[in-house]
């Protein structure tokens, strides 16, 4: 059990690697993924690190690979994932890879540039062809050709001819369709209406050579008179970035030109197709290899980054690395280092040397995919301090259980369980899809949690006897009624009768499994259930808190703080049990001892509890009739007084004993000087804590300055202990009340469920129409199902999840957990590649 009960024992190691062997060794260590390197060159400028050139080359390669990848994706080719994981290539092969990427990239760039030029050409020719075709219609409509020709002839002959001769020039071109209205307006304003614009849209969209998107364009023709207008029109066309084309006036010339253009277009199309084919060939060639290349380059870069963290020893031509490693894995690391040496052909072996240190090691848990989800929940609040008790194994069960107390519906629980089960069964295929949707990834990461929550919800739902707000009657109700017809008078729906427990309750056992089904139909259901659920919440809460306090025993024992065991754990336990454990006892006692025959005398627990603190007792034997505030068992006064005094006494013990004890230890130590220096204040698993100073450090936030004589600030310790005492005592009360949210949320869930039944499904089911009713229930069921999933499953589920999280983090863990550690982040390719693959854009 050791591995998850508390974090793994870690040791700081020093690695001495030969320079030739270093690359291969780091590559092997990366494959293993169990060693966390420390950065020994933190103060060095990034550009002065030893392997900065190699890193630069890697980034160049990555850039090229990104470009190639982008081109592949542009052509909508899929990058196949064979699932293989190539190892990082040796430094010699890096040069080959670089050359290959260079070749691929330059080829692609060339092809792209050529294609772009060709496409531009193609576009111009296409537009020209459109212009030539469309102007035919313009001319015929306006009936200009002869007139223009005649007019120009006339002008040439008679320079100062009559002003009636129309002297029209024209411009033809192509403009994007959406710009036509503003273009028209501008022409109208600028030329004061003296120009004539005709335009016609081109049917098929034309491809823009640079961006590749298809644009709709229109052919236009502007007729104007005079040079000034011509210049103005030309400027406006430039402003709107319209492409102008020369258009011959006579039909013949136009036809000839059209033929020429068409031929050229066909040739160009052929060339364009061939270019496309070439590009595709290059891309397909790269497509197979690109994933492997990307992985290899990432690994090389990671290795060089890591090598940059080492310090270089010139005298021995070796690199020195420091890092953390679990003690159990030291042998594996040594084996892996030997393999690295063999690969690189180095003769001088590398050395792995464990160090002793005062630094706090990182926290490492060997989790499986089942336990990782729960460990994430615990870590989200705070990573466990090194070798502190891990709350995770208990969270596996208590988390889904407390969730289910708040969720308590067998029907909803079944749905949730099936959802979780599907995710677990289809784990592999869902993982390989590598989705980027964060919400889905969150749900998928918690699949085991969801499955367990659903399972427990089925159980608590059966106990609450609530499935989609209906009850099961499996064993037969424990209540019965012997009312006669004469008793049952009045309006059937509004008139009510109460079944008094005396005559009408059970001849045998209460309903054996859960709440009796008769309560679902009762009008005073909530009164009964509230009492039950509130008491249940308090019972569960106090149990969990006592469990948390008991877990702190393990912490005290492990860190050798025996004084804590007696002056923290015991007073805490006594305080908790004497006050709140006694409350639980009273709850059970009242349930067991008092029944309906003495219902008037059944003690009011709350008032009794308050009287306990106020030492106000009324002896029952002195009264003639029952009083709910009187004592209800013998010697109650003495017992309760003892409990209160024990609890009150435990507070100063909790507050005072530990600081003064530590101070006396410190004084005893400093006055007669001790020979042994206290070495480790940190809780390094290798060295046994020598001095009592370790006991001071545990659980406190004192910072070690690396000095041998530690500082003993009595005031600080005292204040910390005072805070701890106040937190604990007030916390007991407030946390107990906080657990009442178990009741509140389950009430809310049950009421929401009932509302959905009464207001939605019931209306559909109770329609009194034969065939139309069937259709109506079909529609109503859709509403009911959608609301159930959206409101009751998703919203209530998330809400209950959040509250359970809070209950664990604050109420449970504050009793024993400090969470001041930092996570172990080993150098491993699996971690690096996994993270990267999540960020790939699909």
């Amino acid at each position, binding site marked *: 059990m050791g591995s998850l009960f508390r974090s793994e024992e870690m040791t700081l190691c020093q690695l001495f690697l030969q320079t030739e062997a270093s690359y291969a060794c780091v590559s092997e260590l990366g494959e293993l993924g169990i060693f966390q390197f420390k950065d020994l060159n933190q103060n060095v400028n990034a550009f002065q690190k030893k392997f900065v050139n190699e890193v630069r080359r890697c980034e160049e390669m990555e850039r090229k690979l990104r470009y190639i990848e982008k081109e592949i994706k542009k052509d909508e080719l899929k990058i196949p994932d064979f699932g293989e994981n190539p190892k990082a290539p040796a430094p010699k092969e890096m040069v080959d890879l670089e050359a290959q990427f260079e070749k691929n990239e330059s080829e692609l760039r060339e092809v792209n540039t050529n294609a772009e030029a060709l496409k531009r050409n193609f576009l111009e020719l296409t537009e020209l062809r459109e212009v030539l075709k469309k102007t035919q219609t313009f001319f015929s409509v306006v009936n200009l050709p002869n007139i223009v020709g005649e007019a120009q002839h006339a002008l040439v002959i008679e320079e100062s001819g009559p002003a009636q001769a129309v002297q029209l020039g024209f411009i033809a071109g192509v403009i994007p369709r959406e710009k036509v209205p503003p273009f028209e307006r501008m022409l109208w304003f600028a030329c004061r209406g003296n120009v004539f614009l005709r335009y016609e849209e081109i049917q098929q969209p034309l491809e823009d050579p640079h961006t590749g998107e298809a644009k709709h364009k229109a052919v236009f023709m502007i007729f104007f008179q005079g040079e000034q207008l011509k210049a103005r029109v030309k400027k406006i066309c430039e402003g709107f970035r319209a492409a102008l084309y020369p258009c011959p006036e006579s039909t013949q010339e136009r036809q000839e030109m059209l033929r020429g253009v068409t031929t050229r277009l066909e040739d160009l199309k052929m060339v364009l197709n061939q270019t496309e084919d070439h590009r595709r060939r290059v891309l397909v060639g790269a497509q197979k290899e690109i994933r492997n290349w990307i992985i290899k380059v990432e690994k090389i870069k990671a290795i060089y980054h890591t090598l940059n963290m080492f310090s270089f020893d010139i005298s021995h031509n070796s690199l020195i690395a420091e890092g953390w490693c679990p003690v159990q894995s030291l042998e594996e690391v040594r084996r892996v280092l030997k393999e690295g040496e063999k690969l690189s052909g180095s003769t001088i072996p590398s050395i792995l040397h464990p160090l002793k240190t005062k630094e706090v090691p990182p926290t490492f848990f060997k989790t499986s995919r089942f336990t990782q989800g729960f460990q994430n929940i615990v870590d989200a609040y705070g990573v466990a301090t090194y070798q502190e008790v891990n709350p995770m194994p*208990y969270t596996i069960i208590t988390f889904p259980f407390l969730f289910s107390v708040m969720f308590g519906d067998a029907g909803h629980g079944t749905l949730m369980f099936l959802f979780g089960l599907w995710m677990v069964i289809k784990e592999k295929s869902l993982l390989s899809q590598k989705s980027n949707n964060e919400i889905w990834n969150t749900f998928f990461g918690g699949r085991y949690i969801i499955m367990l929550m659903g399972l427990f919800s089925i159980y608590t739902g059966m106990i609450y006897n609530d499935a989609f707000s209906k009850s099961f009657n499996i064993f037969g109700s424990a209540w019965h009624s012997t009312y006669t017809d004469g008793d049952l008078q009045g309006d059937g729906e509004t008139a009510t009768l109460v079944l008094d427990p005396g005559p009408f309750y059970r001849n045998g056992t209460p*309903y054996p499994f859960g709440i009796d089904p008769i309560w679902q139909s009762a009008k005073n259901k909530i009164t009964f259930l509230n009492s039950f659920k509130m008491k249940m919440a308090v019972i569960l809460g106090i149990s969990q808190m006592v469990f948390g306090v008991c877990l702190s025993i393990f912490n005290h024992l492990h860190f050798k703080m025996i004084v804590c065991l007696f002056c923290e754990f015991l007073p805490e336990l006594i305080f908790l049990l004497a006050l709140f454990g006694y409350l639980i006892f009273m709850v059970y006692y009242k349930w067991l001892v008092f029944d309906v025959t003495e219902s008037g005398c059944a003690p009011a627990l709350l008032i009794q509890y308050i009287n306990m603190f106020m030492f106000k007792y009324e002896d029952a034997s002195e009264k003639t009739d029952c009083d709910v505030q009187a004592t209800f068992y013998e010697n109650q006064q003495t017992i309760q007084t003892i409990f209160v005094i024990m609890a009150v006494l435990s507070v100063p013990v909790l507050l005072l004993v530990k600081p003064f004890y530590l101070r006396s230890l410190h004084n005893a130590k400093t006055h007669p000087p001790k020979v042994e220096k206290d070495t480790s204040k940190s809780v390094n698993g290798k060295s046994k804590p020598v001095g009592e100073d370790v006991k001071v450090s545990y659980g406190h936030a004192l910072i070690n300055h690396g000095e041998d004589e530690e500082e003993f600030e009595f005031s600080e310790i005292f204040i910390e202990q005072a805070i701890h005492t106040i937190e604990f005592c007030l916390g007991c009360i407030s946390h107990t009340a906080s657990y009442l949210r178990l009741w509140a949320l389950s009430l809310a869930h049950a009421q929401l469920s009932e509302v959905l039944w009464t207001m939605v499904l019931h209306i559909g089911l109770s329609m009194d129409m034969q065939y139309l009713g069937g259709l109506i229930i079909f529609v109503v069921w859709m509403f009911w199902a959608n609301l159930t999933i959206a409101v009751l499953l998703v919203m209530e589920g998330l809400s209950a999840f959040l509250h359970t999280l809070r209950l664990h983090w604050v109420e449970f863990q504050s009793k024993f957990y400090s969470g001041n550690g930092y996570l172990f982040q080993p150098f491993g390719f699996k971690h690096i590649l996994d993270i990267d693959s999540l960020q790939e854009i699909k």
Partner: protein
Amino acid sequence: METGLVIGIVTAFWFFVGAVLPIILQFFLWRSPNKGIYQIMLILTAVCCYIFWLTAYLCQLNPLFGPQLSVDMIRFMQQEWWNDQSV
């Protein structure tokens, strides 16, 4: 069914899950690294579920008041659940 019988059966069941099974696992799975986790899971499940059931059972042992039902409902229940055809 007697009260004692019901309590006895359920207690025995959860005792088996929470105490006997972990002991069996201790010998059958003694090499597995996850043995501890299984044991903790079994014990905690048994404890939590048993407390939950016990509280629900005990709170109904001696109820201080009964359900308030509409007259229609009582009529229906008497006929269907308790086979009283006289109403």
